């Protein structure tokens, strides 16, 4: 009689894959492990892990510049002053990325055993090791880890020594099947040894977080010594004679790297944030890209700068220690070197002080010399609408008088990615998680904590002596914990170790530029309030850290 449409109401999905069919076993195996590592890019950017590990310390400070930039409702000030709260967006996204990383590792662990490909066994070990790595970050930052056997279970929450044991077990289980030649972009046995050394080094902190002084157990220190020695004696790794090459765009093949995030400009996720974050918005590091600049982010604190001047006395640290500074532009020492070809244009590296020089932009294009080379000149804060204010980095930086765009010495440790057209993304330099110098310094620390200052001094001087491309830093003559922490600062500044180091050395409650808070409960971050709210349907499941 009429027209009747009839249907069994089975949903037809047109734009999503409901099963990963049609892929080869190799593709399935690759597809399982890639996201486990892929999560690292976002986690290790300027506003996430970097902000939590560096801006909270004496190495970095980010004021509300000129009252127009990096105000962000005070979150970077709170991070530095240890007044961070459970609603901090950077803490929240760091938390989220870490737990996503664990989840992706769990998915890979459940999928890989069923995949019939020779790579599956190695990947399974990597997934397990990465689960441990993400968990280690969670324990270090938030004081807890989530663990579960099956991806669909509700995780058990572990804290303290229990969490350390859990992470250790996963790392040890991963070790045997890892490919020693897969690094530095993927986990290798040496990377796992390094992470185990780091875990044992901090185990005392994790076991008794708010202790007045930590009880570093001899067993733990012995483990640190044996794991670091295993790496050093493997012969696979070598300290770089050029310190800044370790952070260069071609650092993937640098033999100092043990474990790093493999960055390639053409892979989605790869970023240049660590090179772009600190330098001026009127600094243009690439002749080919007139939109690639910096952002006037964090500076080092004057207190951190003084650790260098105190160490080297009358000698300018730039001349005393190759890790402090590397001049790439001749105009800094030769005022007539005003024309540079695009290929030879590289901004200076390390800690940048004083008037900055470089490409200047006029009407949207860089000013050229007559012969096709580019004009080098003094930089001004043109893009900040302060065209008479020079880009002249000054030592003083704080939240009141010295919070303009030019305040504070800046850091250009990683090389600015040559393909980063906007300066933000498309980075090339691998972001280092573990390198040989850190291994030597961990060895030194374990020896020192066991009372062997002589070996510790030797280790530190080994690292100092290795940078032979220019004059290496002079050897130290004595060693103690304060000097070792200072040395870690010189070697590893802005490499996202500082907060963990300061806590372990008992300095996180000290006073430094714009920071006086001495609450030990700030040694771990608050669990994001959104996570607490989301868990409120299971009473007692997720308990907020003390003091938040």
């Amino acid at each position, binding site marked *: 009689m009429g027209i009747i449409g009839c*249907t069994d109401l089975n949903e037809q999905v047109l734009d999503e894959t409901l099963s990963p069919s049609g892929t080869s076993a190799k593709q399935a195996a690759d*597809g399982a492990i890639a996201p486990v590592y*892929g999560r690292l890019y976002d986690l290790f950017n300027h506003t996430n892990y970097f902000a939590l590990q560096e801006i909270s310390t004496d190495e970095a400070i980010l004021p*509300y510049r000129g009252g127009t930039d990096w105000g962000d409702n005070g979150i970077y000030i709170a991070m530095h002053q240890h007044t961070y709260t459970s609603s901090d967006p950077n803490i929240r996204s760091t938390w989220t990325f870490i737990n996503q990383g664990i989840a992706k590792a769990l998915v890979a662990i459940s999928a890989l055993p069923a995949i019939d490909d020779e790579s599956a066994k190695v990947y399974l070990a990597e997934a397990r090791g990465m689960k441990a790595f993400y968990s280690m970050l969670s324990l270090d930052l938030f004081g807890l880890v989530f663990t579960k056997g099956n991806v669909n279970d509700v995780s058990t929450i572990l804290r303290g020594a229990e969490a350390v044991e859990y992470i250790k077990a996963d790392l040890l289980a991963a070790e045997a099947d890892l490919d020693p030649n897969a690094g530095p972009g993927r986990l290798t046995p040496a990377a796992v040894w390094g992470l185990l050394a780091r875990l044992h080094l901090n185990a005392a902190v994790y076991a008794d977080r708010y202790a007045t002084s930590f009880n570093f157990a001899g067993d733990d220190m012995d483990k640190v010594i044996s794991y670091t020695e295993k790496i050093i004696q493997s012969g696979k790794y070598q300290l770089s004679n050029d310190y800044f090459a370790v952070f260069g765009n071609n650092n993937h093949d640098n033999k100092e790297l043990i474990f790093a995030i493999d960055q*390639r400009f053409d892979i*989605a996720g790869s970023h240049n944030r660590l090179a772009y974050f600190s330098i001026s918005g009127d600094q243009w590091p690439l002749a080919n890209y007139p939109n690639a600049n910096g952002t006037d982010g964090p500076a080092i604190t004057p207190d951190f700068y003084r650790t260098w001047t105190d160490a080297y006395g009358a000698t300018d640290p730039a001349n005393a220690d190759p890790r402090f500074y590397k001049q790439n532009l001749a105009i800094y020492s030769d005022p007539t070197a005003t024309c540079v070809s695009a290929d030879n244009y590289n901004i200076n590296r390390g800690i940048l002080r004083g008037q900055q020089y470089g490409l200047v932009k006029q*009407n949207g294009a860089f000013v050229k010399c007559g012969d096709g080379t580019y004009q080098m000149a003094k930089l001004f804060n043109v*893009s900040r609408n302060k065209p008479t204010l020079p880009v002249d980095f000054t030592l003083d930086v704080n939240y009141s008088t010295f919070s303009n765009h030019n305040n504070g010495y800046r850091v250009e440790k990683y090389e600015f990615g040559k393909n980063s057209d906007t300066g933000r993304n498309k980075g090339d330099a691998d972001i280092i998680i573990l390198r040989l110098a850190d291994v030597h310094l961990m060895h030194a620390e374990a020896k020192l904590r066991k009372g062997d200052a002589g070996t510790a001094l030797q280790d530190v001087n080994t690292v100092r002596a290795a940078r032979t491309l220019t004059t290496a830093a002079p050897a130290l003559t004595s060693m103690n914990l304060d000097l070792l922490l200072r040395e870690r600062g010189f070697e590893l500044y802005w490499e996202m170790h500082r907060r963990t180091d300061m806590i372990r050395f008992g300095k996180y409650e000290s006073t430094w530029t714009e920071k006086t808070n001495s609450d030990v409960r700030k040694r771990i971050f608050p669990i994001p309030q959104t996570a607490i709210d989301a868990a409120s349907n299971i009473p007692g499941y997720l308990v907020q850290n003390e003091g938040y």
Partner: protein
Amino acid sequence: MKKIYELFQERKLLSPLRRSYFILSVLVVLAGFNGANAYAQNKTVSGKITDEVGEPLPGVNVIEKGTTNGTVSDADGNYKLSVASSESVLVFSFVGTVSQQITVGSQSEITVKLSSDASTLSEVVVMGYGTQEKKDVTGSVASVKSEDFNKGIINSPEQLLQGKVAGVNVVSASGEPGGNQAITIRGPGGVRTGSTPLFVVDGMALDNTSTSGGGVNPLNFLNPKDIASIDVLKDASATAIYGSRGANGVVLITTRRGKAGSSSITYSTDFGLSKMARPIDVFTGDEFRQNVVAAGGLLDDQGANTDWQKEVSRTALTQNHNISFGGGADKLTYYASLGMQDQEGILKNSNMKRYSGRVNVTQKALNDRLSIDLNLNATNTVNERPPIESVIGGALSMNPTYPAYDDNGDPAFLNLVTPLVELKLNKDITTIDRAIGNISPSFEIIKGLVYKLNFGVDNSNSVRDIESLPSLQPARIGRIESVYKHNSNSLIENYITYTKSFGEHSLTAMIGQSYQKFYIQERGYSINNFAISDVEPRNNPSLGSSLTLTDNRPTASTIKNELQSFFGRATYEWKNKYLATATFRADGSTKFGDNNKYGYFPSFSVGWRLSEEEFIKSLPFSNLKLRAGWGQTGNQDLPEKKTQASFNSSTAAGSTYPLYTGPYPAGTTFTRLANPDLQWEVSTQTDVGLDFGFLDGALSGSVDYFSKKTNNILLRLLATADPVQVATETWTNLKDMTVTNSGLELALNYQFKSTSDFRYNVGGNITFISNKVEDSPYTVIPSGTATGSGLTSATINGYVNGEPIGTFYLKEFTGFDANGQSTYADNDGDGVVTDKDRIAAGTALPKKMYNFYASVAYKGFDLTANFNGVSGNKVYDNTANANFYKLRVKNNLNATDEAIANPEESATNPASVSTRYLKDAAFLRLNNLSLGYNFNTTSLKINNWVKAIRLSVTGQNLFVITKYDGYDPEVNTERTLDNASSYGIDYLSYPKAKSVVFGLNVTF
């Protein structure tokens, strides 16, 4: 004719619009043809038409039955008409009266007295799948006729309804032309988005999905002038016939149809002038110079005094032209229209242009047993948007000492991007073509048994071009992104209705089946890097020189879903006093889980017409009816595919990683886990109502109590208890959680009837409503993401137990400490202020909504005023939170007095999200004030040409009384967080306009 022409001439506004003269001339010619009737006319009848008290009635239609021959009574109620013969029958009809038919016979003068349609009881109400006389309705239904609609510049049917129906809350997202209107009937029932009622146009159920991405309300396609009436089904006994789509109420829109035996052509035109109603009072250049210094800042003074809000806005012109004609003979009736509305927004580069055409035809055959309705509507909408947030944000905070223009008259750059530069460099243009057609033949099989088929198709295609123009200063590389969207909705319904009366019993039964399919596809492409030239990127995207997967990955989605339903209704009436209705619908949907394919939605209601009882008849009631109903409805407005697991295999950021040398692997991630148990939300609603009329219907009204409880709340979990989740998306029904809306609705109308030329009418409605969330397993379900530097992670709304939806869940601002830093209440007393100290600080949902109106008429003049207001609600001023604090002033950013109101506040104090920026949103608005004059075409001696001429002037939003110091307290900037709706947030919203609209309406 000459006079009309002169009238046009006097209207300076018209002068640039030559087209209107052309249209007018065409109409005149058409009218001429109509007048030159080839019909044999050999008898003339004249007479006077009065109302029941003998007062002359102008404007009554007098039609010779079965022909198109007819006239309209003049101002004195006189008419004159030539008819074919003495057998001719004259039909006299007038709104609000009972029509009369009189056979001419030997009379040459027929005087008619039209009696008023007793308290409009015989008014027909459109139900789902049928109509019912209002007196027989047992559910809570409100009907608004076109003459009662809001007037002026109207883009969508929700605006016609605003304030007109108790229990219906219409909140415009902003003042943007064609922008979204949030309409809720009896309060929102769920957490996630999708509290919009079901809209049904002439039997065609629409899909509420946006037809474009450009912030255009999908209902804009309807030309308001084509709408004859809107019926709002409020309670479950009325909406349960729409089953799983009935929980948010149903709005039935009926468009105009032709009437047999009449013929008319109407041309109407409006010209409106709009300006920003309430600019925000930011500092002038001179105030700024003082305040920056006072706040301790180093003044950056460029010497000018620029009012940036004025620079980005304008006095906007709106023009509207509409031609419609309709009529018909015995078997065929028709209505056709073509409308054009060209609306300038009060912000520069903001325009909304719509062309719409409609043809509605009814053909009868087979001795009138077969009747076929056909409705066709085609609309073309072009919407141009400026970058609203950056323009408004810039206009409010840009240093007023900066000049707006440089020496060449171009927007000045000065290394800061001014809002005028933003306007120049950003465009967002959406074009939507939408066509809806449905055909519904009905056939009377035997007497009382009617079969009806309804087949309809609704298709829309849109293109949105988001364009960033290349520029040297500021340096912009240029980009064009085009998003193509196709929406398709097709419907087939079959139903049979049986009507039978026997003795004192009367029964109507209906059963039917419905199948509806939706298909929505969206694809976006972009390209970057354009050379600076006169060619806009959207006109030739091939000029772009950079196309990479990183920067230009296409966006896409294609979804399809189906609904299959079976439904029935029975209404029974005994002795014309006792009424009962029962409905049932079984709804199946592809969106529901395998375990819950079909939902079942029953309702029952009864009515008692007390005024028909002997014991009431002695009392002064003209109408008294008690109604009570109960029913269950559903909300199936959940997104597609949520019951099924999904993998994502991609080389996007986060999924891929270089494992070795070679192409980067596609990483596999779960986007979603299967949840076959997922189902609709269920609302159970009870309604008790009383309709009454006194004084022979002069005073009438109704009162309703309702309670609507929704459970099985559907939620996308922002985060789960265990943060280690395989899939990024988790959907669930919270079985025990409920949202209850309960309230009281009261509507009253008084019509003064008099024998003089003076008439008036007053009335209004008021709704008291409360909303409560209970038994949520969570301490808070957050929503309403704050916006602004450093505010982005904070949330403003929260769904918490014991509080209404739309609750503001915030830290409680208590003042400033000795250092001038903000302090907040430590409500849990643990010594630190954290998010745990947040309180429920009020709600965005009004506790009271009211509307009142008055109209007076004297001879040809009429004046109508319409007020609406709400109270008990608050608004979060995110604009002030992000812009108006001392630190900004110190840093040479403009602000209002609010920023410097506290001398004790330090200039370094950050503005956190807190109750500090929560403001009272109660308001009373003069929504509509309209003055009209109907010309007496008879005394002007043009009645052979023109049946009626009306001139009107309407003021819209002439004033609003409120404590709120933002643009307007009626605002709803969408800040949905993971599908949980946000409420009452104002962030750089498009300012509301105040308008004056001049209208001309000519009927031939």
